[in-house]
């Protein structure tokens, strides 16, 4: 299951760090952030609850960059 989300992050290094953190979240098979397109492509692990997982992603990313925003 692949999904692309519009995101808001305004520093490239933060985007890198968010990507690393997002990949550690349970339920995420792989997450990539395209800073230039302001997009996050997420591949969910089988059986994962998208909404819950994305909330968790948002939380860990906000820890890295308080201004991080995902359009869910």
């Amino acid at each position, binding site marked *: 299951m692949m999904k692309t989300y519009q995101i808001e992050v305004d520093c490239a290094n933060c985007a890198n760090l968010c990507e690393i953190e997002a990949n550690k979240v349970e339920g995420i098979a792989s997450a990539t952030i*395209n800073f*230039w397109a302001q*997009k996050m492509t997420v591949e969910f692990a089988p059986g994962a609850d998208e909404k819950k997982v994305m909330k968790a992603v948002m939380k860990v990313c906000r*820890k890295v960059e*308080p201004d991080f925003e995902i359009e869910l």
Partner: protein
Amino acid sequence: MTRKQKRNLIRIIVSSVFLIVLNIVPTTGLLRAGLFLTCYLVIGYDILRKAGRGIVNGRMFDENFLMAVATVGAIALAVYAKTGDYNEAVAVMLFYQIGEWFQSYAVGKSRKNINALMDIRPDYANVEQEGKLIQVSPDTVAVGSEIVVRPGEKIPLDGVVVKGASSLNTSALTGESLPREVTVGDAVISGCVNMRGVLTICTTKAFGESTVSRILELVENAGSRKSKSEKFISRFSRIYTPAVCISALALAILPPLVLTALGKSGMWGDWIYRALTFLVISCPCALVISVPLSFFAGIGGASREGILIKGSNYLEALAQTKYVVFDKTGTLTQGVFQVTGVHHNTVDEDTLLAYAALAESASSHPIAQSLQRAYGKEPELDRVGEIQEISGHGVLAVIDGKRIAVGNSKLMDSVGAAYQDCHQTGTIIHIAIDGAYAGHIVISDVVKQDAASGVAELKKAGVKQCIMLTGDREAVAKDVAAALGLDGYYSQLLPGDKVQRVEEILAGKSGRETLAFVGDGINDAPVLARADIGIAMGAMGSDAAVEAADVVLMDDNPLKIAKAVKISRKCLGIVKQNVYFAIGVKLVCLILGAAGFANMWLAIFADVGVMVIAVVNAIRALQVKNL
């Protein structure tokens, strides 16, 4: 400007004015300290807050932390030394914020520019309802609906023209500036701009499967496949920042301790100042920003030229291309059989062509079709009498009351005509009229106009070998290879043999060199996948090509292969420049800082200035038109 940018700009202006006033109006003691501190907090509160959160969340060594430590350190020094010079701390924070603002603005601007370049997404489709044209979202148009495209509008969905004629501007898709003429019955693809007449189009694909959507998806996802350079940079920055922090700490503590131990003055203030300068220089932003931006711009520029690259990693591999292997039919040649010569004719060429076309008028064989195309008219069937097809030999027909034999040499033998062989390669069609030899027609695949210059350009771009693989006969392959100046060719290959040949070449090349395979993608999928870079020609219409390849050329012009290589070289060149420039300047500044020759101002330049220069340089990758 976003809201955040506006807010920060106001903060920058307010605190700049504040700082200038503070320097003109003389104040002393606590009041002075208080005012400067207020100014410092106005400009730096968010940095301090982020630094605090970073520490709480166990993420110590980010740039906010560095700036906070450096400026707080500078204030502490000023208090400790009782100099009352708080200017530096405030100014460092101010300049850092100016740099951040400028960076965010430049980044936002370039992102918009690149996105605008790639904006081929149509906004609406005109659908006729109850005699009126209404605009609807292209998403909602069902396959098989009729849509109307007026001059100046984008074609929103793939389809077939059912009414009207016009010329289309395909440059947004292919980079080709010559307009394409279309009329009733022609297939059109979304993203083209209608230039002249009103077209009514019957859609053949839903919006999601239309060319435009496929291209956009491809380009947008390109950033997800990261190149080695990008991976290197993100690894590098993860090690780099902590390393610099530890060095800064060492710089602040070790030299004074050693000096004290040697019985000299420790000069603590001096060394701490140097350590703080160190911290300001250390931010890896220039690298982290400019490297992906260069790739993004390179991919954007290429897509503007009709070259779709599926990821930064492929762009990187493309720059190392030393071997290019071509498929012949459809790639170097047009893949369409044409009459290329009429020889030894006893009647004039047109008459001979007419006889051949009429005799073959009942056949749907590709050869018969090319004869009819060369004839150029609807065959006048009333001129044709009885037609007798002799399988494996040709056709016997009665035309204008004459007995015409059209076929190969065996047929000529059987009708007793003394035929002449041809010196040209291709398919030879002999014709005899009333048993007497009347000449032959040569039909062959035609080499593309730009194929030879495409190969020459590749050579100029530093490609070592251009090799052709074909399932065609030896003689044909030899001819084409010679005409195009190829370094080698393999003929009479089955699809499986092609993979084997490519593997042989792959085994022969050295480490960093890469091999690109160029094919038309329909039966070349295994080879496209096996090669380091698979390049598919002519994406218009062929899903298989888009799927299997790493690079897709929107039109099937062989010149674009060299162009793709050149774009990748330019892009990689810029990446290298940025990496060397940024690391170089930082290293020099770090050494100067450690030795005590650099002050905070130089440090700010090393951080923000380098970053802005790198971003501006990265944008150059977008300009690929004249490569």
